[in-house]
């Protein structure tokens, strides 16, 4: 007995010291490897690199990917640092989170005062982050005009102004598909062929009317009664509408593509009733799975598994290749509405400099480089040439020899999140002129009259939370056609009204008027 206890004690003491060593050792190895542990950022970086090239500023860049940091994050980080170390005297550390935890880890890190120098606001809601005071003013001390002139050139002043909240600039838009092809669905081509739909014609996106689409669905359902015809999603309603959801929330919107600056209640509009009726009709006819409201399987997975035929998507150049790739089947894209730049699409997830940034000038310099330096942008988007990707004869990028989508150490498929996607290589399977088409697409789209208006939720924060709760409760049942819209919408609207929806609408209108007056 005695021996046992002594042994246990010894073991635990050893374990303690081991784990102390283990932890410390791990850190040391890490800081040796990439030139700085994250907590003691400044000091150790200076110690490591000071001798090499004088003053090196160490920045922490945080963004999410769908499933967390790719395996080669440190390699890519080093490759990026090689480009900027001598040129700017800046090194970065990539802090890549999985999408689900990004909001939480940023909230905790910033409220804990941890150093974060550049952050993407994808998943870390921009408006919310501004409201909680996590982001810093990018024009303070002429930060943007002094160090970020290249960004303004690339993005254009109009796009930059679109990111202002209450007149203050907290974020920089990223270059991607700003417009959105509204009213798009992707349908697996084989089923269309099965019903004898004429697919001749070479346009990437086939334009049809909603009635024609309903007709296609009816035929699909008749021919394939066992398969789910259509799967709605939380974004489907906005996607299938011509409403401009001011400030990113559908509580108080501009109807009719935002031609007039009149804020209205979406939930009492004819459009919303029509939309819900259409989906309700789909549901009644058995087009929609009873599982739709809760099943978390991706629609693309369902198409891949052969149980689903179509789902909503956003139209843009390259969409056919993207969806085909995701579904593992050839997909056909139908569009029933216009291409549209809403007031919020530019400012959906800008890049920002948090208040805990150690050196905002360096952050801005680095951002400027990300927007303008093709080499740097390529490494961030696609990794290291020869290791993660290669350039084919046609000038398009593809996985390097010996790696594929699942074995590549840097395959985050978040190119559209990066500051300037248009600088990077075009991936194989896309049109070689994809970026030009994208620019054309952005430029030719209908632009909301409120484009550039950003809603400051400070005064109605509590109402927004309360109304959002109501919406969370009802959205799936109403918009996926599980309840009769006549009763469902009325009930939801009533609850939203008592939660303060009208106050939000009034506040939006007031801010919109004030914004319009200064234009």
């Amino acid at each position, binding site marked *: 007995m005695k021996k046992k206890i002594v042994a246990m004690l010894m073991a635990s003491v050893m374990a303690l010291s081991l784990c102390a060593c283990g932890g410390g050792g791990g850190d040391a190895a890490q800081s040796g490897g990439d030139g700085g542990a994250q907590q003691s950022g400044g000091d150790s970086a200076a110690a490591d690199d000071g001798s090499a090239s004088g003053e090196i500023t160490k920045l922490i860049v945080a963004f999410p990917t769908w499933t967390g940091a790719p395996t080669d994050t440190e390699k890519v980080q080093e490759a990026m640092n090689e480009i900027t170390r001598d040129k700017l005297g800046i090194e970065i550390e990539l802090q890549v989170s999985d999408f689900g935890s990004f909001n939480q880890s940023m909230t905790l890190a910033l409220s804990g005062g941890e150093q974060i120098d550049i952050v993407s606001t994808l998943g870390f809601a921009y408006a919310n982050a501004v409201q909680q005071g996590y982001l810093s003013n990018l024009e303070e001390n002429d930060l943007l005009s002094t160090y970020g002139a290249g960004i303004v050139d690339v993005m254009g002043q109009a796009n930059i102004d679109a990111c202002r909240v209450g007149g203050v600039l907290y974020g920089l838009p990223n270059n991607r598909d700003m417009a959105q092809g509204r009213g798009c669905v992707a349908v697996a081509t084989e089923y269309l062929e099965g019903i004898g739909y004429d697919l001749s014609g070479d346009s990437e996106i086939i334009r049809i009317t909603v009635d024609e689409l309903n007709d296609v669905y009816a035929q699909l359902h008749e021919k394939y009664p066992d398969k789910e015809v259509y799967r709605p999603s939380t974004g489907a309603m906005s996607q299938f509408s011509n409403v401009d959801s001011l400030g990113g929330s559908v509580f108080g919107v501009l109807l009719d593509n935002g031609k007039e600056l009149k804020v209205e209640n979406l939930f009492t509009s004819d459009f919303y009733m029509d939309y819900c009726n259409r989906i309700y009709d789909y549901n009644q006819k058995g087009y929609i799975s*009873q599982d739709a409201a809760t099943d978390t399987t991706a629609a693309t997975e369902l198409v891949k598994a052969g149980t689903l035929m179509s789902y909503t998507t956003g139209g843009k150049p390259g969409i056919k290749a993207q969806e085909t790739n995701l579904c593992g089947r050839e997909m056909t894209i139908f569009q029933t509405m216009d291409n549209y730049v809403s007031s919020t699409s530019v400012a959906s997830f800008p890049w920002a400099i948090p208040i805990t940034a150690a050196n905002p000038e360096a952050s801005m310099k680095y951002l400027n480089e990300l927007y303008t330096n093709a080499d740097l942008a390529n490494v961030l988007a696609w990794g290291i040439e020869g290791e993660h990707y290669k350039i084919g004869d046609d000038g398009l990028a593809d996985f390097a020899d010996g790696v594929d989508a699942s074995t590549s150490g840097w395959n985050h498929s978040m190119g559209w999140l990066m500051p300037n996607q248009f600088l990077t290589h075009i991936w194989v399977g896309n049109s070689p002129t994809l970026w030009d088409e994208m620019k054309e697409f952005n430029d030719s789209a209908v632009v909301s009259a409120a484009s550039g208006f950003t809603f400051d939720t400070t005064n109605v924060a509590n109402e927004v939370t309360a109304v959002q*709760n109501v919406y969370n409760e009802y959205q799936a049942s109403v918009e996926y056609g599980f309840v009769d819209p006549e009763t469902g919408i009325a009930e939801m609207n009533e609850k939203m009204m008592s939660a303060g929806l009208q106050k939000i609408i009034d506040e939006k209108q007031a801010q919109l008027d004030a914004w319009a007056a200064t234009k």
Partner: protein
Amino acid sequence: MSRAKTASEAGGGAKKMTLKRFKRFIPIYLLMLPGLIYLFINNYMPLPGLTVAFKKYNAGMGIYKSPWVGFQNFTYLFTTDDAWVITRNTIGYNLAFIVVNTVMAITVAIILSELTGRIKKFYQSAILLPNLISSVIIGYLVFAFFSVENGFVNNSILKLFGKEAVSWYSEAKYWPFILIFVSAWKSVGYNCIVYLATLMGFDRAFYESAQIDGATKWQQIKYITLPLLKPTIIMLTLMAIGRIFYSDFGLFYQVPMNQGALYSTTNTIDTYVYRGLLQMGNISMSAAAGVYQSIVGFVLVLVANLVVRRVDKDSALI
């Protein structure tokens, strides 16, 4: 009794004596130090952070420098439906858990105490196993049963009876039953062991003489077993009532899978605090709900403990 006596002796002793005692106990204090330091770090150091409940949080200024707003966060919390809903859910579920789990645990314990043989061990092991499974995995298991299209319940059970599939994860009304069921699944085995142990400690002579007098099994249970179990039942129930303001975070957070449509029947104070903080970023409001929970919870625990002390001093926590 004796405890109080020794304490008063120590207090009343001569100064020299106390010093000597103190010296004798120095090694004991040293032993206690790691644990006390841990509690200081883990529980006491963050305590000033509670003040954020009385502030308007601003990240730029940090928790400690944000401006005071008095009870504004509380006022808002109680003007919305939220405070009512989360309080109702927390207390309602706990009451249901207490009743269902106690009744089931006692029933199972009585049955088990009458059975013999190797299979009894098996029963006990089987019903205790769920208690060891993490709430994340329980969330996965529940989903396997209640997923609308793929779930076992809709796909096999309801289909068998020719019933329509139910979309479990979007209809709040089913969740009180599901959660009570899951809670029972998880904890009946655990609770029953305490009762079983108490039962095994009873004097069999009571039962033998009752049998001789011709008492039926039911009469034995009603007039012997249950009255003998009464102190244990009262004690366990009182302790549970003391913690009625706290909920099993894992159960309420993982099992309903964070579905907005279910909030009206699945949101408890603990999940509200967590969600308010990390999904809405509303630090002040979430802290206000936390303070509300701590204070009411504190009072309840103290009261329950006081009552327990009255009933049976040795069972009281302090």
